[in-house]
């Protein structure tokens, strides 16, 4: 098992700074995800680890070895590509054997290892097929088997599921995690799909603009976002500008949010601004409905009500901002007419605070730990 250490890595393409001094320490055996929108630098970082890009400065270590000057073909990283990159002129067997032949293994060894790898991805008996006879999911399994067959130090997965259909994506992401855990191999997984990242990862690094925004386990990334970018990118987050009115009960402040008076957590330590941005997740809204009279209540105009089967999603307008709230197990009366007024409550403890200008998280009393 190999750790990966990325230290102050900078990469420029022309005038564009794709990576702005990125540092990460990935534990042995960990499934580590780089999550972010396209152009955030996640793929660039992965390709730099693989050796396809040479960083302008900074170091990359695989285990204890500094690999900056190792060409890509000597790095012993197993990469799985977004568009499979299965060699179309070779059979499945030859694809998986390719890296083993490069390493001049004996014929017997090769057969054994190829078969083991194919078994692991549930493609026994597919060896003689040509890639054009395989479905997308099967091709990606070949890609995975091929990368694992060389027993690489680390596994690098570059959006491996994004070309598959939704059902297969869900199926294969657990499969990939299972295989990775069985082998105990360190893996970097790149994706722009936040749900995929939450499901599959031991830890996630959220990236934007060539900078790591936050590193943490899925739970922390979702529940405890470090800034507005992470908050909005992972899941959906409602944002309301609020004006602090004064002290509330212990640990809380009274605030005016778009004309409604709310209790919000009091910022820990010294906070001298009058304004603050409050945030909450759609599923944290409670008591959604037409009837007013709740504690910590917000009232907003309904723009659209979308019936999703298991829930109703209400798109509301509040003080010029769009607000999304969800009501699980809806009744017929919960699908409100556009233009009507909806009331809902937000428990003060599920409200997060952000700095109105920098977008950084403002820690609340009780959150310091």
């Amino acid at each position: 098992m190999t750790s990966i250490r990325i230290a102050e890595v900078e990469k420029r393409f022309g005038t564009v700074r794709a990576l702005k001094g990125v540092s990460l320490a990935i534990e042995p055996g960990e499934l580590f995800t780089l999550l972010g929108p396209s152009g955030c630098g996640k793929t660039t970082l992965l390709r730099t680890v693989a050796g396809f890009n040479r960083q302008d400065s900074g170091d990359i270590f695989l285990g204890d070895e500094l690999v900056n000057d190792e060409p890509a073909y000597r790095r012993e990283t197993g990469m799985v590509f977004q568009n499979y990159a299965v060699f179309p002129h070779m059979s499945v067997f030859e694809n998986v054997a390719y890296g083993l032949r490069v390493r001049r293994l004996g014929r017997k060894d090769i057969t054994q290892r190829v078969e083991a790898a194919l078994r692991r991805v549930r493609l026994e008996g597919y060896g003689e097929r040509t890639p054009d006879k395989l479905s997308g999911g099967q091709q990606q399994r070949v890609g995975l088997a091929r990368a694992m067959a060389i027993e690489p130090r680390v596994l690098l997965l570059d959006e491996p599921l994004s070309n598959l259909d939704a059902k297969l994506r869900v199926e294969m992401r657990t499969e990939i995690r299972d295989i990775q855990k069985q082998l105990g191999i360190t893996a970097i997984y790149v994706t722009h799909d936040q749900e995929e990242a939450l499901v599959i990862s031991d830890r996630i690094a959220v990236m934007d603009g060539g900078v790591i925004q936050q590193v943490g386990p899925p739970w922390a990334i979702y529940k405890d976002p470090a800034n507005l970018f992470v908050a909005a990118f992972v899941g959906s987050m409602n944002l309301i500008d609020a004006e602090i009115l004064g002290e509330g009960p212990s640990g809380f402040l009274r605030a005016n949010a778009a004309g409604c008076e709310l209790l919000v957590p009091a910022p820990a330590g010294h906070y001298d601004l009058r304004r603050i941005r409050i945030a909450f997740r759609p599923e944290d809204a409670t008591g959604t409905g037409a009837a007013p009279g709740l504690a910590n209540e917000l009232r907003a105009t309904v723009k659209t009500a979308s019936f999703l089967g298991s829930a109703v999603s209400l798109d509301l307008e509040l003080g010029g901002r769009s607000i999304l709230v969800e009501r699980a197990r809806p009744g017929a009366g919960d699908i409100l007419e556009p233009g009507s007024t909806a009331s809902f409550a937000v428990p003060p403890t599920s409200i997060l605070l952000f700095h109105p200008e920098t977008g950084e998280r403002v820690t609340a009393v009780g959150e310091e730990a």
Partner: protein
Amino acid sequence: MSRRSPLDVWSAVTLAGFACVLMFLIYPLFDVFRYSFIDKTTGALSLSNYTQFFGRKYYINAFIHSMFIAVATTAFSILLGVPLAFLTTRYRIRGSAMLNTLAVLALLSPPFIGAYSWVTMLGRSGFLRQALSSIGLILPPIYGPLGIILADTLQYYPFVTLMTAGALMTTDRSLEEASQNLGARGIRTFLTVTLPLVLPSLTGGALIVFMMSLSNFGTPMIIGGNYLVLPTLAYNLYTSEVAESPGMASTVSILLMVCASGVIALQQWASTRRKYASMLVNRPVQKRLGPVWAGPAHVLCYLIVALSTLPLAVVVYYSFRNTSGPVFKTGYGLASYRSIFFEVPKTVTNSFVYALVAVVLIASVGTLLGFVIARRRRLSVRVLDPLLMVPYMVPGTVLGIGFIVAFNRKPIYLAGTGVIIILTYFIRRLPYSVRSAASILKQIDPALEEAGINLGSPPGRTFRTIALPLMKAGIISGAIMSWVTSMNELSASILLYVGKTMTMPIKIYLSVLDGYFGTASAMSTILLVVTGLALYLVNRWTGKAGATIVGL
């Protein structure tokens, strides 16, 4: 510990590419350029050649003639090419595959065969002209501008057909349907939707015709009579100037190149200007023509193709006629072929050997340079790329003059060898090979090569085991096309050959001049068969192997 070598395989390839271009292109062309500024009598640097060119009607006329021929040929090619493309792609025309093959065969046939065949039909003692005059229809002999335009048009119009048909087959049917749905009738839809959509491709094809016609040497030489165009003028000047510096010939060459590069620039501009990338959701379907229009449509298509195939058929026919020297006798036989194999077997083997050696060079160097251009966009490669395209705009005659001047003195003597002819084939065809290799690679996902590298295979091995096998079909069909064009090359080699390095096109040309039509016909037929065979092989290769590339 750095294990990266500063000079990898691909840097070496780039370097070799520069060496090739400098040595066999820039060096000879610079000589042509230099000589065009040297006064013939004083040997001093001067503009006298240019002032002389623009001061004498004889020279100016050649320029005007060239332009006239090129414009007329282009116009007629559009006139023939567009209807053929439209009818065969949009309507069901019986035997359209055969029509297509025959048109392409005419396109690829040696450029002077058409001209020479029209001479046998409509020349001074042409059989067709005599037959027509016996029924009272007296035509003037075909020599001169009309002959050149006729022969050029019937050879080059397929460029327009192919390019336009290609675009017509990839325009989404829904666009025309939308137009009709909005109330535009058939002809209006064609003029306002279909035609504008295919116009970029049509223009591209037309400019190729213009270029080919402008730099064609064989046709005006054989059928032009006294009507001089720039390539034939340069040739005449060169062959009469040979003892001294090729001053005036160089000047004409430079002017010809300026015109040619103007056309290329126009073509580049046209091809980038408006490209309608189409999603091609709905492929166009071939409609069945109504009973009224089916007849005329078929007649038109067959007439166009028949006209362009006629010269080829005549040549084949004459190759089996018995001859006695320049005179055709009654009866048929293989005498003409026999005489080739007994009298000039070296000519035949020269053609095959030179073209084969050239093709090995073209395919290997072209593939490697194509790889560098498609995959390694470094500064040096970005400089090399446009340089490699220069041979596109160098007419054969110009390159021939450059070679004979540059390689007939220290440090490189190549005059009179087969090597110099092979090198002209090589350099003239190299841009096509580089372009085609690069465009094949653009269809191959670079991730495949990265996967190879990632699995531990060094760059050279990755190229050999992954890129090369995927490019194979394209490289082979490209090589076959290069071989055909090299076999049929005349305009540069005519300036460079000596007795022992004569090739078939040169021999055909000389036989035509001497009136030995039998020998010329037989040799032309051999070239035609070779061309047709190559065409068939390419069709088979790309048909079969194309799927592996597309099916990625």
